[in-house]
């Protein structure tokens, strides 16, 4: 029919290259990466270490800068998008500042971004409820378990109403049981907040369970080998992981990862 595609991607990468200059010569962290992430997507990046999945997330966040191609976030450059508070970033470790209480840690971005003081208490309460940590405002980080700390760091990333959540292996350091629980909670959070989430992981079940779109990457040079649109429904109880559909997607991811490795 020739109509315009009205849904422009929230995050769009075109022919993205990133080469690090090191003493051992150039390292191609990313090469020819093309990807569009739509509003409300939950996109997982999966691949072996060195495949550039974290680097790609950092480029989206403007923490690294591409050496070729373009990347836009909400139609802006990553740096502009950051200044417009387009995204919240969740790191591998919770990274809560130990001298601040949980509420204090969540207030940190609010203070830096100059959000009026009168709103702080409300926002802190709201995001702590979202991650199921209501009542922990006055605790210090060391008084919380690892999983609770990571939830607090997610709350911190949500506090300033960014539409995009960038998560870099946020549950990588947690044990299986806690991770399952947090995955479930994250899906609930995603459903209730309508955020767009980009999620780096090295766990196939985690990627398949969470995502609407799975991006399989391979190393040397870091590139995308497969993009899988998940056929799974939005409502996902934990036992969906035993269904044939789930196992089929997991199988395809595994195949994609294996293919990437046949290069070396």
């Amino acid at each position: 029919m020739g109509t315009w595609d009205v849904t422009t991607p929230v995050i769009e990468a075109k022919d993205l290259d990133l080469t690090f200059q090191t003493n051992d010569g150039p390292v191609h962290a990313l090469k020819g990466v093309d990807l569009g992430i739509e509003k409300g997507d939950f996109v997982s990046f999966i691949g072996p270490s060195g495949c550039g999945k974290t680097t790609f997330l950092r480029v989206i966040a403007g923490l690294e800068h591409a050496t070729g191609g373009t990347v836009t976030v909400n139609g802006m450059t990553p740096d502009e998008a950051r200044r417009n508070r387009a995204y919240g970033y969740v790191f591998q470790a919770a990274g809560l500042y130990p001298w601040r209480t949980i509420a204090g840690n969540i207030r940190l971005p609010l203070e830096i971004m100059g959000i009026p003081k009168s709103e702080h208490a409300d926002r802190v309460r709201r995001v702590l409820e979202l991650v199921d940590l209501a009542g922990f405002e006055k605790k210090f980080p060391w008084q919380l378990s690892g999983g609770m700390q990571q939830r607090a760091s997610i709350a911190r990333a949500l506090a300033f109403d960014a539409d995009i959540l960038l998560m870099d292996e946020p549950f990588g350091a947690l044990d299986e049981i806690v991770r399952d629980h947090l995955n479930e909670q994250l899906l609930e959070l995603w459903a209730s907040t309508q955020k767009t989430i980009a999620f780096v992981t090295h766990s196939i079940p985690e990627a398949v369970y969470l995502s609407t779109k799975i991006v399989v990457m391979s190393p040397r040079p870091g590139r995308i080998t497969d993009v899988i649109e998940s056929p799974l429904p939005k409502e996902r109880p934990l036992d969906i992981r035993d269904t044939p559909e789930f196992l089929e997607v997991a199988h395809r991811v595994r195949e994609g990862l294996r293919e990437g490795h046949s290069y070396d």
Partner: protein
Amino acid sequence: MKTILPILTVVAAIVAIWYAAAIPMNAQWAKDQAARADTTLTTGELVLDTWSQERPRLPAPHQVLSELWDSTGDMALNGRAFSKRSLILHAWYTLSATLLGFAIGTGLGILLAVGIVHSKAMDMGVMPWAIASQTIPILAIAPMIIVVLNSMGISGIIPKAIISAYLSFFPVVVGMVKGLRSPAMMDLDLMRTYSASRSQTFWKLRLPASMPYLFASLKVGIAAALVGTIVGELPTGAIRGLGARMLSGSYYGQTIQIWSALFAAAILAALLVGIIGIIQRRSLKRMGMAA
């Protein structure tokens, strides 16, 4: 209770060694005196004599303690706490210069550390000089500072405080540079995702993260400040302060006076370090980082 016994054992051992060492150190004088008086001393008399001479080479602990009491508590009880011979007065002279020097040194040290962490040029340009400054013997440079400042009409507490600051700024610089650089890459990246300015990163991340390092430095710094002040009191003609008491004691062979001044200095140092320890515990506890 478990820790008190070992501590008491060590103290008892030191006291015992001290008393034992006083016998051979002071024996010669006791023998000479006896020979001059044409008497001979039994071993017991000799030992007792070595522990009770007026100008021994090594005074016995009880002599030092009684001199310490005579020149502090006893004088205070008699309303002469601030007489010229009172160690309280001299300790106060030393303490005031130490605190002033410590404040100058700490302030300077923190400022330098902030500059060094934020500017590559300062890192390369200032740090080597800070290190070089500490390789010069303070005994060599102290008299020059006193003389130069005196010729400019500055005397009293200021020159001593400057020498004190000279010694105490260094541990603060080293500790604060380390502390301000202690945040992990991830903590700094978090600030970048908020588009935080340099000053926001400093006040909200670097400075609080450096507090444990700062307190460790302050403990070293205050002890160094006290040493600096005492050294600064030596070339001033030995008028005021614990350093002056030590020097005048050595002029007149008053070993007991030297030792009691040394003890006063040691007690002062212990008190100062202890006070910083208390402040450290309180503030780190309030920051949720109980050490």
